């Protein structure tokens, strides 16, 4: 299995490899995997190191690896805390066992159908994930796992509480090895792709991911479905190994076992998961000598391991390989002249809001807000604290749904659209309290935002085929280009959360621009900046406004900046629009002065 890890490393190096290189890599991966298999079998035949007993344990290691890696996809990478993995395993085990034992089907289709049935279960369980998060989701998935078990308990065709005995013992080391290798390779390929970046973005900051055009609903469900599929396959292998299954084998503790594997290995580390699968499988076996005290020692060791390595054995260590690929890509990021991202302009009014209002409980945060932004305008939105400025942004980007009124963008009604759809149509934003994917690299922050015209599919990502390499190369190159424009290219491999404040603000703008917007909404971009930085920001905004042919709407408290930058200013006070005029007229407006500017302004 070490060679397996090596093989996957080899597979992942570099994203710009030519087809020839890719073929070589594939061959190396396959060769490594095959070598690993023959090594184990050879040692076993020769009676060196691996006895029959150890071969049996290796089979359990393989099954636990599949369980762990598939749960890590849901839990570690997508950040959806699931405690019901045993339920998916049970579905796979029962469906596969039913097919071989009662219908007499061959093993391979039985595994496949078992996995698919579990994937359907994942689809159902994924739905609460759309409404719940964190501990609540954990408890709901736990509930689903238990319900699946109780349903099986009441199904007489599969023996109910008596269980299902006499399942053919089809599971061999080859089967388990092949399936575990396939799971690792597929999940790994999936993680290091456009889709995988979307999953990680959801884990890091769901709201930001949604406004960067990630359809969080779709991707969350995808994680559950794919994870459940492999858990189902693991269940099939399990059933045909143990040859007798009953519902009590798939209780809550089974889910916990899988959870222990991924937490011990490191959430978000596949290599760590494989390692932990070894530890968790071998440990109870090694403790057999202690007979009665075995489980006591096991639980003590679990507690101690957590106390001393709370981030797991590996943390998220393998992410290092990704930076390897990044180093390669950077050198080739040169020739793309930053062509305008926005497609050609539509009719002059870009954005129109009609009578928008927004209530929070009894409080009317925004009332009867009417605004028209024309192509290429640079407009400021100002007002005292609590005037409803950010609420306007939230309505425009779909994070809040307006209580009444409508929002039209490029002639389409976007009032009820999801944030990711609105972003797809061409509105991007930044946040008042910077919301980067702060545990990811600078480059990944921008890469998540990128989408091509016809993005490659999940199958292409998993097989590393078709448009995958050319598009990945393109995304990487363009992202680097963006970083260069914002002076961040030499920091591409740094962790975003560790950047200095000003750089984080610039990165957030780079990320928003990478989604290819026509309208850019900036929420207090100068907050917390010193005069020098504010001046640089002014130049930067002017420059991107021109360069990307953008329409810009800007919330800002720094009046100096707003007066210099904006062609028109809208003033909000207690949710009402009290002025909408050129800067020169705004400073003379009596109501504005009363409400906001005060005496000494200008």
């Amino acid at each position, binding site marked *: 299995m070490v060679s397996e890890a090596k093989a996957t490393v080899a597979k992942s190096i570099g994203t710009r490899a030519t087809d020839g290189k890719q073929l070589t890599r594939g061959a190396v991966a396959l060769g490594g995997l095959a070598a690993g298999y023959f090594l184990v079998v050879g040692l076993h035949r020769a009676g060196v190191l691996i006895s029959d007993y150890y071969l049996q344990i290796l089979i359990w290691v393989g099954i636990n690896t599949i369980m762990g890696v598939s749960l890590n996809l849901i839990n570690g990478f997508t950040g959806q*805390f699931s405690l019901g993995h045993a339920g998916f395993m049970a579905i796979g085990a029962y469906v596969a066992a039913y097919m071989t034992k009662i219908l007499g089907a061959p093993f391979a289709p039985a595994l496949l159908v078992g996995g698919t049935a579990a994937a359907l279960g994942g689809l159902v369980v994924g739905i609460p994930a759309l*409404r719940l998060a964190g501990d609540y989701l954990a*408890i709901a998935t736990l*509930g689903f796992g238990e319900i699946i078990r109780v349903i099986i308990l009441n199904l007489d065709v599969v023996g109910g509480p008596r269980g299902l005995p006499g399942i053919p013992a089809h599971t061999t080391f080859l089967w388990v090895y092949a399936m575990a290798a396939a799971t690792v390779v597929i999940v790994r390929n999936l993680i290091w792709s456009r889709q995988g970046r979307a999953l990680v973005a959801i884990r890091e900051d769901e*709201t930001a991911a949604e406004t960067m055009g990630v359809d969080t609903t779709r991707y969350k469900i995808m994680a559950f479905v794919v994870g459940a599929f492999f858990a189902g396959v693991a269940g099939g292998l399990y059933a045909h190994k143990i040859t007798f299954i009953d519902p009590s084998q798939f209780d809550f503790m089974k889910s916990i076992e899988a959870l222990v594997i991924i*937490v011990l290995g490191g959430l978000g580390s596949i290599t760590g998961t494989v390692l932990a699968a070894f530890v968790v499988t071998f440990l109870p076996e090694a403790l057999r000598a202690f007979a009665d005290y075995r*489980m006591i020692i096991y639980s003590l060791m679990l507690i101690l391991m957590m106390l001393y390595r709370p981030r797991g054995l590996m943390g998220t260590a393998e992410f290092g390989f990704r930076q390897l690929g990044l180093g390669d890509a950077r050198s080739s990021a040169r020739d793309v002249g930053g062509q305008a991202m926005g497609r050609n302009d539509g009719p002059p009014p870009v954005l129109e809001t009609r009578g928008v209002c927004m209530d929070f409980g009894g409080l009317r945060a925004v009332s009867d807000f009417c605004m028209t932004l024309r192509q290429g305008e640079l407009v400021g939105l100002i007002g005292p604290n609590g005037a409803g400025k950010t609420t306007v942004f*939230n309505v425009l980007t779909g994070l809040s749904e307006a209580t009444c009124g409508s929002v039209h963008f490029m002639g389409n009604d976007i009032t009820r659209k999801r944030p990711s759809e609105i972003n797809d149509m061409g509105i991007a934003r930044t946040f008042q309290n910077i919301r980067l994917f702060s545990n990811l690299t600078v480059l990944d922050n921008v890469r998540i935002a990128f989408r091509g015209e016809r993005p490659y599919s999940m199958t292409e990502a998993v097989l590393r085929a078709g448009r995958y390499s050319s598009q990945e190369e393109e995304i990487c190159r363009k992202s680097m280009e963006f970083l260069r424009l914002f002076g961040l290219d030499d920091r591409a491999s740094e962790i975003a959360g560790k950047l200095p404040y000003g750089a984080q603000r610039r990165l957030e703008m780079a990320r928003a621009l990478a989604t290819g917007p026509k309208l850019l909404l900036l929420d207090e971009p100068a907050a917390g900046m010193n005069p020098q930085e504010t001046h640089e920001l002014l130049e930067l905004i002017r420059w991107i406004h021109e360069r990307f042919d953008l329409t810009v709407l800007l919330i800002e408290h720094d009046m100096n900046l707003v007066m210099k930058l904006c062609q028109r200013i809208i003033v909000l006070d207690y949710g009402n629009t009290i002025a909408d005029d050129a800067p020169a007229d705004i400073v003379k407006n009596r109501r504005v002065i009363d409400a906001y500017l005060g005496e000494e302004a200008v």
Partner: protein
Amino acid sequence: MPGGLDISMVVQQLVNGLALGSVYALIALGYTMVYGIVRLINFAHGDIFMLGAYYGYFAITMFKIPFALALPLAMGLAAVTGMAVERLAYKPLRQAPRIASLITAIGVSLLLQNLGLKFFEARPRPYPRIIPMVVWDVGGVVVSNVQLIMLALAIALMVLISLIVYRTKIGKAMRAVSFDKDAARLMGIDADMVIGVTFALGSALAAAGGMLVGFYYNRISPTMGAMYGLKAFVAAVVGGIGIVPGAMLGGLIMGVAEVFVIAFVSSMLKDAIAFAILIVILLFKPAGLLGRAVREKV
């Protein structure tokens, strides 16, 4: 089940359900208080409940202590156990990722359960009969003195805990730490002490629940903590986790629902109903019945 739904049958099940539900409520209180203050699903809580039952069992059978004294004794011992678990296993992980504490809690649960299996023997034990059972028949509804004592005790404890949380200084400190630990610290509250007290109170309630279960169902076993613990936790979530009255409401709902399912549907489904209620409630009220959804500020 065949036979119509006659009204006395329904009332009868309601009485039984409230008795069971009051136990769930007692255990749920511990979950909810601990979660409220350290945001940890304390999986070991169910096993503290089990230990509490055994503490009472040994106090009564081996040391011949009367029930009225055995109950506070078991509660005190459980409180010490709960505080020790917190000090040794959870406190070192306050700054670690929350999932690490969760796994540790699961480890502690496994440890306590296996210690129980080793030292208390795996076989279920009959609980000592403390008082002779007296049964009254009120218009077809059978009520026993055991049920009444159980309900009365549970209600008394719940009132007591509400008074502590909402009327005392330490209760105020608990609510402050729960709201914002760091701010509470800056106001001079010893957060570690408050967390310890919370674990102690929760564990004491669980021990009372454990003794009542032994008292009512007449048997205890080292693995009883798992299912009771899980369902009580579900009860806490259904009521709105972190909210004291929510735990009581959730516990009663769980108890009544379970007894009704056993009586009128199938005893095979009794463990599923808790989770089915949970999922339905969470889908419609993601923060529980009495919880208020907190919108993320953007």
